Structures are given as C-alpha cells and as structure tokens.
C-alpha cells in the first residue's frame, strides 16, 4: 500500500466524517438509506476499494456518534438504531442531566469501536476456513436467512408471505428487462432493485401524497415541534474529553462486555441485540440516573460494535454479505455489478491487511474528529441542522440518487421497474416486513424461483 492510497484514504475518511456528522443529526435518517446509495455510487465509479472502505468506516462511526445527539438534546432518534435509547435519555433529562446522556452515549460509542475492530478481525481470522463452504450454498443461506429474520420479526406471517411475493416480482422484472431487450439476456440487474427496496418507504410516502384521502391523513396544521433541552453542565471545556474518565469503571466494563457480545452476534438484528443487552446490563444497577447511564453507554457500545463487526467479519472472512449490516448499508462491497460481483468482490480483491488498515484509519479519523465535537457542541450542531437544513433537501437528494442509479442500470425501463418494486417494498415495510427479510429475498430470488418453477 503506497503513500498516495493512504492519503486518498485519509481524505475520503475526512469527507465521510463531515458529511455523515450532519446526516447523523437529521431526524429519521435510516442507516441503509443514507449510506447504501453513496457507497454503491463510489464503488461503481471506480474509486479504489480501500479508499471507499475508509470512507465507509469513517461515515459509520461518525454517524453512530452523532445520531445519539438528537436523542440527548431533543429526545428524538437520529436513526433507527438510536430509537431504543430515547427512553433512557428521557430519564436522564427528567433528572436534570440532559448533556450527561450524550457524553455517556458518545463514550460508549468510542468503546464499542475500539473493542469491535480487533475482535472482528480476530473472529474473521477464525472464520475464514468456512468461507468456501458458505459461498457454495450462498443462495440457500440467503433463503434460510430470510426465513429466520421473518420468524424473528414482529409480523411473521406477512414477512414469510412476502419472501415469495418479492422474489416473484424481482424475477419478473429481470425477465421483463431481458424481454424488452434493454439488458442483454443473462445479465442480472441488482443495484437498482436493492435501491428500490431501500427507498421503498419513502417512495410509498410520496405516492400517498398523490391520493386525496391519504394526503389528508398525512397533513398537519403545525410543523414538527422539536424541543431543545437546556444545558445542565456547560463547564466541560477540558482540552480533549476522555471517554474513560466520563464513564465510571463499571460502565466501561459493561460497555466492553456488550461490545464483545455485539461483535460475536454480528449475524443477528443489531436493534434486537441492542435492546436486549441494554436491558441486561442495566438490570442489576440501582438508582435511576446510574441505571439510565449504564443502559445508554452499553447500548451505544453495542450498536457500534454490531455495525463494525457486521461489515468487517463478512468482508474479511466470508465474502458473502451474511449480516443485516453487510446486506444493507455495506452491500456495495459485496455486490456492485459490473465492478463487484458475489464471486469477485471486495473480500477477494482486498487483502486482510488492506481491510484492517482501511477500517482502522477510517474509524480512527472519525473518532478523533467527531467524538470531541459531539461531546462539546452537541447542542449547537443540533440547532444548526434543525434550523438550516430542510427535510425536502434530503428527500430530493436520495430520490434523485436512486433515479440516477436506476437509469444507469436499465434506462427508462429501469426507472419504471424501480418504481414498481419500491411501491411494493414500501407497502410491505409499512406492514412490518423489515429490510433484512427483503434484502435476503433479493439475493435468494433467482434460486428460489428456479426451484419453485
């Protein structure tokens, strides 16, 4: 690895940190929806993989650090993963420790990152011998994965039914493109279907706006009101905040243990693990404030660890996206035709060393920049984003990115196909079929339909 690539990785990490520090704060931003299109575009554009990985790691760590900010400052989740933490942050706020929450969460994040990278690389090293076996049965594994995630979800019946329905729709669209002659027969469209599922909920929302009855239900006379809590201890102006001083020894131990468990369970749903471990770790703590602090620091540590392990282990060891994280936000590293395919992806093209260096560099840059900023300027960042960046700008950017990649895949027919798929996926999502089930189905579709035919 030469100096030029290292410099590019550094620059990419810096860009990732700046962009995703802002996006992390914005309410309601889903990790998959905000990261997957950008990463896909970078990979397809031919940016060297270590540079994209450094960008991605920096973006994930920065986003995870900052999406705790609105939780502590305004009691609203900055992303899907931070939703379970709102309750505990509200307790701290009620007790008059609003900014304590962000410091505990951000410090938990730091521990999660510091623990997860070495643990994941070690696990990856141990799991490597499995890779050949697993990749032979990839389609079957994805199908079993879809069924497993469906059975673990709240809406089991519709999730199971949707596996077959979505698979049929996806294969129907592929044959439609081949039949129309917009894609050479045998070439498999993937990116635009993936994105169609990703922005399904948003497209479904936009479509609802065109229906008078639905629009009336979505209308409100008032803009969303966000309450920004008062600062309780603005005296923290020490040079560089130290996560090990902010957390008590017990909190640091809990956070470390949670991070290890979160890394080992990389193939499970990170939200589920987060809630579970947060409750377990805080269950034997007495005192409201102490309990909430313990839960917050542990939960933030787990989300970070689950994310990092979820991408690093499949990437370094397995070569197929076998975790909700790898199949969602990090999907571009495994399948981004024509640049990467399931048989020839970042796992095959990057050495273990390159993966390790890119991850450590990206995560390191993000920690060094975002952690002190998050701890010290949480309130300012929040107020800036809420007051200056309109939600319309985010919606329009993701919408246009998906249109771009759909057009690139299959022209005007590609845009139509994505529209159909996004509507169906969005409706299923509304009914409780989660992304994990839908993405696994996307991978299993050719095999499943071939087997049923």
């Amino acid at each position: 690895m030469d100096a030029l690539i290292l410099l590019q990785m550094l620059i990419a990490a810096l860009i990732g940190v700046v962009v995703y520090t802002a996006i992390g704060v914005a309410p309601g931003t889903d990790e998959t929806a905000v990261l997957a299109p950008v990463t896909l575009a970078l990979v397809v554009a031919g940016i060297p993989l270590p540079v994209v990985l450094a960008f991605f790691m920096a973006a994930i760590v920065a986003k995870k650090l900052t999406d705790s900010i609105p939780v502590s400052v305004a009691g609203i989740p900055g992303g899907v993963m931070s939703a379970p933490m709102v309750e505990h942050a509200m307790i701290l706020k009620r007790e008059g420790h609003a900014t304590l929450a962000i410091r505990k969460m951000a410090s938990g994040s730091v521990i999660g990152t510091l623990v997860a990278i070495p643990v994941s690389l070690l696990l990856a090293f141990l799991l490597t011998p499995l890779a050949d076996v697993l990749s032979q049965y990839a389609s079957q594994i994805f199908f079993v994965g879809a069924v497993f995630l469906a059975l673990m979800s709240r809406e089991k019946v519709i999730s199971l039914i949707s596996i077959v329905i979505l698979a049929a729709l996806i294969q129907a669209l592929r044959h439609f493109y081949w039949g129309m002659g917009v894609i050479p027969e045998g070439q498999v469209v993937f990116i635009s279907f993936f994105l169609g599922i990703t922005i399904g909920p948003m497209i479904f929302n936009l479509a609802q706006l065109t229906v008078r009855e639905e629009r009336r239900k979505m209308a409100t006379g008032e803009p969303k009101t966000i309450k920004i809590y008062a600062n309780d201890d603005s005296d923290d102006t020490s040079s560089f905040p130290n996560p090990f001083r902010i957390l008590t020894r017990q909190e640091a131990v809990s956070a470390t243990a949670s991070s290890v468990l979160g890394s080992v369970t990389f193939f499970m749903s990170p939200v589920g693990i987060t809630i579970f471990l947060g409750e377990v770790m805080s269950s034997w703590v007495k005192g409201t404030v102490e309990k909430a602090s313990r839960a917050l620091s542990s939960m933030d540590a787990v989300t970070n660890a689950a994310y990092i392990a979820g991408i690093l282990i499949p990437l370094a060891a397995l070569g197929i996206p076998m975790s909700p994280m790898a199949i969602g936000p990090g999907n571009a590293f495994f399948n981004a035709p024509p640049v990467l395919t399931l048989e020839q992806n970042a796992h095959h093209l990057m050495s273990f060393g390159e993966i390790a260096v890119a991850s450590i560099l990206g995560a390191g840059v993000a920690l060094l920049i975002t952690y002190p900023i998050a701890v010290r300027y949480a309130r300012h960042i929040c107020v800036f984003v809420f007051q200056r960046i309109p939600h319309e700008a985010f919606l329009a950017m993701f919408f246009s990115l998906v249109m771009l990649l759909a057009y690139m895949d299959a022209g005007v027919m590609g845009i139509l196909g994505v529209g159909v798929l996004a509507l169906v996926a969005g409706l299923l999502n509304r009914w409780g079929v989660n992304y994990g089930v839908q993405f696994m189905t996307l991978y299993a579709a050719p095999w499943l339909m071939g087997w049923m035919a």
Partner: protein
Amino acid sequence: MPNKTTSYLTVWDDTVTGKDLIIALAVSTPLTLGGFIFTPWPAPMPLIIGLCGALLGFAINAVCLRPKRRLDIEGEA
C-alpha cells in the same frame, strides 16, 4: 381541505410542504439525471457528474428552502 399554504405534510418522519417538496424534486432530479445523461462517455465520467449534480441540488435546496420545524429552545425563550 385545509388551506394549501399553511398545511404541512409528514413524509418520512418530518414535516414538509407540498410546494417545497415539488420544488426540491424539480431541482435535484434534473441536475442528477441530466448530469448523467448529457455527459459524454467513457465510463466513470457520467456517474461522477451525476453525483456532483446530486450534491449541487442538495446545496441549492438547503440554501433556498426553509426547514419546516419549530424549535423550542429551553433557556432561550
């Protein structure tokens, strides 16, 4: 129907107005797709210009449109 100018819509967990949403889409989509379609090949150039179009559209929308959120800042009331 409520008066169009004062009615907000909840899309993707935040409030927008129909007019501004249409404006934002009308700014971003042509810049992004147009950048891709009208840039001469070879390979990565159209995509890069398209991505720049997406960023430019975001910047224009962020500067020109007003967020529809009401901030209630404790201690500054």
